[in-house]
């Protein structure tokens, strides 16, 4: 009856239940045994034995009760440790006996598991659990979305009044905090450094539930008017700028002209608002200005009350926003909607689709890897059928055999997982390095954590069970006698490989084509992106932010008194080609403003991006003029109200009329702290379009349509930020020191903040996201191709090896080598072709899913990509067939026939 100690489902259930009723059943059993012994004694006594002898005889006949107890215990426990150990030893031994199989299987699984573990780590740490805070899921931001604009996005900075209105009038938040950006100038003995600072509202640290690592967090008392000025430092900055020296605590620093005491250092995973220093400040009613005299922008974060949905919150906030829009119509679009977004979405929204695309690719890779292993296991199981039959005859039950095979595949899967985890551990560092900047929350730490390990464990066990069980069941289903009779080399006819192995190969080919097509599309779209012209030449340009001390640079005139001598000084430096001031850095197009054009009436609102520049701007960036001219030095100095516009501006608003001489009004300039009166500008020139609607991390930046843009002399109105751009002859960073000296020679209290090469910055901003996708998809595509090649090869190699005898007969009967070669290749290519067909259909269906990821010039059914990947796969497949086919054709009939 075979050994029924196996893993029957019912026995398994009984064991689980048995665990519960253990005691009761043991006492029942004792009673039963006692009864049985009693009956035996009675019987022996009746046969004439003495009571004593009868007792001994009964015990002898019944057998060892202790052993019995052990047997029963083993039956009742889930796994017998002893059996498991034996199976494990056996599995290890048999895997060691076929090292090639074991190595390929483990490597294949390791690749799949490693890649998916690494990507899942990124997804988990960036998308699923980026924040170390308890209620992160309830933390939401509010955005004012202009419904006339396409993207689901909007303004999320609010004036003090707006912030207080939202914070006080809402019914949906437990708590509301705010943060406002502030560039902090830290003055020390050697010079001035810039920090990313944040003004934060009372209760911020309580909101997050984050205590300080050293010292203390900000307290309500720190917000009082007479409180001594203090600040809190971010861990990363503490490590980088102060080498993690705890003695800086309680020291006083001159920050933006105020002596502030460092009272606390936050733990590593606190990165709220991505700031480096946290300064206490509460928004006040009626105080509307902040940094550089511009409108203070408070970023608002609310914690939803339990049970309140985002939709309810949006409805509640809309009431408040409508009220605010009535008070300040100029700050609100004509038609708007309040968006409520989770904190994580507001940061990672744009990289999310990329990450999920890559995760899907990795899933496909894992599937191919599993297919390979399943096929290897199937092939192996088939050649071991005689062994199994023998075992079955010797009394091993089917369940026992299945368990043995499962343990073998578990051993493979766990070794694969171990390899995978180590690969993921190494690969993760490269992935983090390749991640585009600013698209992941500052708090997220990308690492292998328990969740990720659990994921890996589940994936590998599932792999083992699913892909080990099918071969195991198939191998053990066969009749006991057949395999014993079958020599394994008999003539079964043609090159039919097991149907299940066929199916797996077809699946693998289909999946890998899908993966390759996806990778091909992403790669093509990256190439297309690189070919897009930005409209400017970013090479050899050094750029830096120049934060001017607010107290001495309040007006445009004061700003220009700093920049005019500075630009003149820079131009005189050896190695400098040209230099310019500007109020925005490419690829940003500057600030948005409503505009009017003289003599034109219109219903809808007209908008344009604008920035202030000095005379050298278009030369530094090599932006070509289409008509008209640039400003002269004198015109800039005199703050003449002149404008240069881009081609899109002309085609959008002037209907290709001659733009030179027309007048445009930048309404935004009237609302500044130092407003420009009557901001009408006469257009003097038109330049070529330059990419200007940058958005984080996505390909959208370059794909977004170019917005109408206006450039005006920077001397007309003081802008929020001042940027310096210098075109050099050599590498721009070589100029750094000279430029810094020139800045300090002009004003020693001005810092050169965030200096860098413009080209690097643009690459980082515009291409890092697509490049990230490109790199990973390329790697995974190649891995997939390699795996599927191994898959096709191993199946065919196995099939031909098994048919050596048959091939020998055929050749002895007159078959040519070419015939053999052809028939093997045909058998393999048939599978590849079917797989490719299915893969193409799947790719076309799935193509839509990644359409948003692609650059607009690349369609998801891009014929070149489809044709190219199909060709690549078929050629690789043919190659994989060719090697075993050649081996088959080389068979010497005499040897093959003797080889029995």
């Amino acid at each position, binding site marked *: *009856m*075979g*050994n*029924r*100690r196996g893993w*029957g489902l*019912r*026995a398994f259930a*009984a*064991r689980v239940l*048995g665990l519960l009723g253990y005691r009761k059943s043991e006492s*029942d*059993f004792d*009673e*039963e*045994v006692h*009864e*049985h012994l*009693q*009956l*035996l004694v*009675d019987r022996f006594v009746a046969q004439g034995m003495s009571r004593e002898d009868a007792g001994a005889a009964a015990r002898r*006949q*019944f*057998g*060892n*009760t202790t*052993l*019995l107890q052990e*047997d*029963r215990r083993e*039956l*009742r426990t889930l796994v017998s440790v002893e059996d498991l150990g034996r199976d494990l030893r056996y599995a290890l031994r048999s895997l060691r006996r076929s090292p090639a199989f074991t190595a390929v299987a483990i490597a294949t699984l390791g690749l799949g598991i490693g890649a998916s573990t690494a990507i899942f780590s990124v997804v988990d740490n960036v998308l699923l659990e980026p924040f170390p805070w308890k209620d992160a899921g309830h933390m939401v931001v509010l955005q004012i979305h202009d419904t006339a604009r396409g993207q689901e996005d909007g303004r999320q900075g609010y004036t003090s009044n707006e912030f207080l209105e939202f914070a006080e009038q809402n019914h949906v938040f437990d708590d509301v905090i705010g943060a406002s950006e502030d560039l902090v100038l830290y003055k020390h003995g050697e010079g001035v450094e810039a920090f990313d600072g944040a003004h934060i509202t009372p209760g911020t640290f309580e909101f997050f539930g984050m205590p300080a690592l050293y010292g203390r967090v900000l307290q309500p008392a720190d917000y009082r008017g007479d409180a001594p000025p203090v600040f809190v430092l971010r861990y990363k900055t503490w490590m980088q700028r102060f080498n993690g020296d705890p003695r800086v605590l309680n020291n006083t620093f001159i920050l933006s002209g105020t002596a502030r005491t460092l009272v606390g250092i936050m733990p590593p995973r606190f990165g709220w608002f991505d700031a480096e220093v946290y300064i206490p400040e509460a928004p006040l009613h009626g105080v509307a200005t902040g940094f550089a005299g511009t409108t203070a922008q408070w970023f608002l974060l609310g914690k939803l009350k339990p049970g309140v949905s985002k939709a309810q919150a949006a409805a509640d906030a809309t009431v408040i926003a409508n009220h605010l829009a009535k008070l300040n119509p100029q700050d609100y679009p004509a038609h708007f909607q309040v968006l409520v977004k989770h904190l994580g979405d507001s940061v990672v929204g744009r990289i999310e689709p990329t990450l999920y695309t890559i995760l899907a690719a990795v899933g496909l890779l894992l599937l191919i890897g599993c297919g390979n292993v399943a096929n290897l296991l199937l092939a192996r199981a088939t050649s071991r059928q005689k062994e199994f039959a023998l075992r079955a*005859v010797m*009394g091993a*039950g089917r369940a026992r055999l299945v368990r043995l095979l499962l343990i073998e595949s578990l051993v493979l899967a766990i070794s694969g997982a171990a390899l995978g985890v180590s690969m993921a551990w190494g690969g993760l560092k490269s992935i983090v390095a390749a991640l585009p900047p600013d698209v992941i929350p500052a708090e997220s730490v990308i690492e292998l954590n328990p969740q990720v390990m659990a994921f890996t464990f589940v994936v590998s066990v599932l792999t083992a069970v699913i892909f080990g069980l099918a071969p195991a069941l198939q191998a053990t289903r066969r009749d*006991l*006698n057949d395999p*014993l009779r079958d020599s394994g080399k008999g003539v079964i006819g043609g090159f039919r490989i097991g149907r299940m192995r066929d199916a797996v190969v077809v699946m693998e080919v289909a999946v890998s084509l899908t993966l390759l097509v996806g990778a091909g599309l992403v790669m093509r779209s990256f190439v297309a992106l690189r070919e897009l012209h930005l409209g400017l030449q970013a090479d050899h340009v050094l750029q830096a932010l120049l934060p001017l001390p607010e107290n001495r640079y309040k007006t445009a005139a004061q700003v220009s008194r700093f920049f005019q001598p500075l630009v003149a000084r820079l131009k005189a430096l050896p190695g400098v080609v040209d230099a310019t001031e500007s109020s925005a850095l490419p690829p940003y197009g500057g600030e948005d403003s409503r505009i009017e054009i003289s003599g034109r009436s219109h219903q809808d609102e007209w908008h344009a991006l604008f920035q202030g520049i000095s005379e050298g701007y278009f030369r530094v960036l090599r932006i070509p003029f289409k008509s008209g001219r640039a400003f002269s030095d004198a015109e800039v100095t005199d703050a003449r109200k002149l404008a240069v516009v881009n081609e899109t501006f002309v085609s959008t608003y002037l209907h290709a009329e001659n733009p030179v001489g027309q007048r445009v009004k930048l309404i935004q300039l009237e609302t500044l702290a130092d407003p420009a009166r009557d901001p009408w500008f006469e257009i003097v020139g038109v330049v070529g379009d330059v990419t200007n609607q940058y958005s984080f991390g996505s390909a959208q930046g370059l794909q977004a349509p170019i917005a109408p843009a206006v450039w005006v002399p920077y001397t007309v109105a003081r802008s929020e930020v001042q940027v310096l751009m210098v075109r050099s002859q050599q590498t721009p960073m070589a100029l750094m020191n000279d430029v810094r000296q020139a800045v300090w020679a002009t004003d020693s209290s001005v810092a050169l903040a965030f200096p860098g090469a413009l080209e690097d910055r643009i690459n980082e901003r515009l291409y890092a996201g697509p490049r990230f996708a490109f790199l990973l998809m390329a790697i995974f595509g190649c891995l997939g191709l390699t795996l599927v090649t191994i898959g096709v090869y191993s199946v065919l190699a196995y099939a031909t090896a098994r048919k050596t005898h048959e091939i020998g007969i055929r050749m002895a009967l007159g078959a040519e080598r070419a015939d053999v070669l052809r028939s093997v290749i045909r058998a393999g290519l048939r599978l590849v072709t079917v797989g490719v067909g299915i893969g193409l259909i799947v790719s076309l269906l799935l193509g839509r899913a990644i359409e948003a990821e692609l650059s607009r010039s690349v369609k998801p059914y891009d014929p070149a990509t489809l044709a190219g990947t199909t060709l690549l796969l078929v050629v690789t497949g043919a190659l994989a067939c060719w090697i075993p086919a050649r081996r088959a054709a080389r068979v010497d009939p005499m040897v093959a026939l003797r080889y029995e």
Partner: protein
Amino acid sequence: MTEAKKSEVLQGTLDLMILKTLHALGSQHGFGIARRIEQVSRDVLQLNEGTVYTSLLRLLQQKWIAAEWGTSENNRKAKFYSITARGEKQLAVETENWERISGVVGRVLELEGER
């Protein structure tokens, strides 16, 4: 055949014998099953009667037999086992299996003998 030369019960065959016994005799307690096997085997098999209970537990777990408490002939409390419908089916399958296997083993042994 002397007492010392009794064969050990082949592992796994005891389950089959018990199923068959319950099939033939209906509800039985452990002692009764042991007596029946002893009687049928005519002292060829060396049976540790305790192993009957291990076998019974195994069969119970597969739900091939059922058990309930009852009273034995001499009015003592005893557990009675009976074969289930599932057990009947299994018995048929295993009987066929056994016949085939013993056939194979028989043939193998004959082959050995020819050498």
